[in-house]
């Protein structure tokens, strides 16, 4: 879900995805490379991401990942599920 969310606004390469997750989570979350690449391959296999080679702003050749329509659907579903669970947990913690 995290990877899908960070590539949902713009295409990013692997390093940038890891960086974005780290920064956007206010440095609370970090994705190890050992988890990132198998996860990216799995998302490619599922058809939720598309990958293409491009040149970065620094002139380096990088492989960027972009969310696919089915990936976006999956993200929406997962976000809705996450929010539902989060609300339920909040309600439990507040009222217990």
């Amino acid at each position, binding site marked *: 879900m995290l990877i899908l969310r960070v590539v949902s606004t713009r295409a990013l*390469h692997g*390093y940038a995805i890891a960086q974005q997750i780290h920064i956007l989570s206010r440095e609370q979350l970090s994705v190890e*490379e*050992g988890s990132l*690449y*198998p996860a990216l391959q799995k998302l490619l*296999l599922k058809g939720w991401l598309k990958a293409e080679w491009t040149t970065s702003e620094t002139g*380096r050749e990088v*492989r960027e990942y972009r969310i696919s329509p089915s990936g976006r659907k999956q993200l929406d579903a997962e976000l809705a599920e996450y929010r539902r669970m989060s609300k339920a947990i909040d309600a439990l913690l507040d009222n217990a």
Partner: protein
Amino acid sequence: MAFFGEWLRRFWYVLNRRRLERDLQREMEAHRAMMREPREFGNTLRLREESNDVWGWNWLDEAWRDLRLAARTLRQSPGFTLGASLVLALGIGLNLTLFQIYNAAFLQPLNVRDIETLVRFQRLSNRGRAANVPYPATQHVRDNNTVLSAVLVAARYRDIQWNDFENHLTAQFVSANWFDETGYNATAGRLFHETVDDAQDAQPAVVIKESFWTNRLNSDPNIVGSSVRINDRPATVIGILPRNYRGLSDDESQVFLPIRQMGYFFRGQTFETAWDTSSNVDMYGRLKPGVPLAAARDSLRFAMDELVAQQPDHFKQGEWLEPYSAVTRLETPSQRQQRLLAVTGVSFLSLLVLTVACANLGNFVLSRAIGRLRELSIRIALGAGRWRVMRLLLAESAMIAAIAATIGLALSSAAFRVMNAAGLPLNVTIDWRTILAAAAVASFAMVAIGLLPTWAISRGNIGSVIKDGGQTVSSGLGRTRLRSLLTAVQVGGSCIFLIFAGMTAQSLQRLLTPGFDFERIAVLEVSSLAGRNIDQNSYWTGVRANVASMSETEDLALVLYPPLSGFTSMWTNPPEAPHLSIWVNSVEPQFFNVMRVPIVAGRNFELGDDPQNSAIISRRLAMDVYGTLDVVGQQLPRTPWPNDKKKWTIVGVAEDAHAIQREPNAAEVYFPLDLHHTKRAWLIARARNEGRLLLGPMKEAAQTVDKNVPVQARLMSSDFRQKQNEAATLSSITLSLALATLVLACIGVFGVVSYGTSLRRKEISIRLALGAKNRSLIALLMRQSGSPAAIGVLWGFGIAYAASKAMEAQRVYLGSLDAPLLLSVVAVIGVTCGIAALLPSVRALRTDVAQTLRDE
């Protein structure tokens, strides 16, 4: 849908695998380069492998690696690879050969058009069954039914003369719609058509099989349209039938003739009007669309009832025509049962050979794997993983199985080339079924031989193996009963084949000592006189007088069934000796002199003997039923048949003439031949010098009496040679199988004992060092193979006994499973397996005691 898309992507990935792996590598390198601390990225290779693993294709790489490693390992031990492959190839080759015969004979559906609507009819009543129907009856049914769109008939004749060919051909007389209804077209020319060939006065036409055209007519390019002489009557060859023609039965007919022209080729034949069995044909029908079998049976009852009313002498009340579908190969239930028995027998033999080969190879591989325990344990200790080692062993088995399957296929096709060259009527080619069967057999073998060592390894304690070089673990494995079981299976398998080889040899032996003298005897075969306006008695009197007057004729006799002709008749088994099969024959008194069958008690028939009252029985029948040869004047049958007052008085006892029927418990009964009450007889004549000199003159002598009666003459010895060849072929096949399995069993015993001795090297050396005698050590070592061999012999005997009983129940006789045969088999197995056990034992004693003790 998502699942389907995922598999498509997986498939796309495997097609572009190399490029995508390179992409991932580049991507990771770029990622590393962008990091402030590239070292934190970790092991790129491991990350790449984990990422690629997501796509699920890493097993391909692993399998390829395993296969390469297995190939390298096998290359390092060429002796083992070659030996193991050859042993398994023998098993697979034999299996494939049996499978292909089975496939050709039983699996392939009838190759005919619209198989669902084609049926065969047989006459059934509450009293019994008749496979054939008189020709006029088939035509009556054809014209008086509402359920059949066509009626097809066929009649096979074995005595067709083609031009001046020395040997007679087998021909099938078929209805003119035969080929249109079975769905065949000519390779050249045309086949019969109802519009052209369905008339007595149509142009005499003949269709030949392609195999006959190539083998016997040297592929004469001008054969179609040419004129030939069949039974001395001119006819035109109108077409060639394709090689793949199998028709409705796998018969060996080479020539096809229109059934309406039978009277032309057999002059004076009244085939179309004879209602008795002389005009019997095989009857088939094509059901109209949507008519089920039961409805056809019921509907045809009307036509049959009409036949009963019109021909009460030939059709009995309550008879019906039973249809058998072409989908079930036109078989009756009992034929299907026989086929199932044959299939079971073939499958059993086939599986047995393969089991023996696999057991052997399992032994081989197990020995080798145990020898490699230290190597394999080191691999495991280095982190290879137990499953990885097992995969390596399985990959080795797979390679051996693949090599063996290829050699097996080659062996099998070579065997068929030899069989085809020998003229066996087996049209077998290697097709997808064979390849599939080879793959199945090889996979079975691979699992069988690969699982054993894998299982053995999985039980081993790896730590102790590394410490003591495998001594403890391999000793433990060696003690398991597995190896003994494998040896018992092999010995048992070879025991079964040896017994069958012995039984077929007995059968051959019995044939070679027939109990009568068939040399210098000519046989005159005359087509049935029934349906012809001929007085049988005067016809035969004339023929007999003509043949007797020839100077070459020493003696002659008329007989109902000449020995070795294949025509026989059987009585029910007598209650006093239920094991006896009694074969009956009607003969003239001279028969015993012509055949050189001595009368051992009483007298021969005399001219005044009443055919309804006198009988001569064979020695076996006299001894088994009456317990003495002094039976003259006694009644036959000894115990009267229920509901039948018929009985005969025994006038004499003849010597056994068991080659009339080759089964072990055959006995004979002879009655005086009564020409007034038989439809057909044969003339047998003994020549003074050479039987061949009688053949031509005998035919002429018969044709002088009536030139319209078709006659054939042949030597009784040629019938004998044919039977001898069949028996010898069967005998040599079982003997080869027996020898092959015996060799396998010996290899197995050799393997067990060599393995045992190699495990006990230390013990042997200590015993030798302590002064043990060679003889007692050899006995100790050979004992290892004793009990498995004994168990093998016991189960082999058990199965062979059950199989021979099952065959006897189906009236298939090879020989008797008696004590001398069993003792011979035990002796053969004892000696061969003994030698196989002795060799490694003796070799073990030649070891250098000091060296061995130092090594260990």
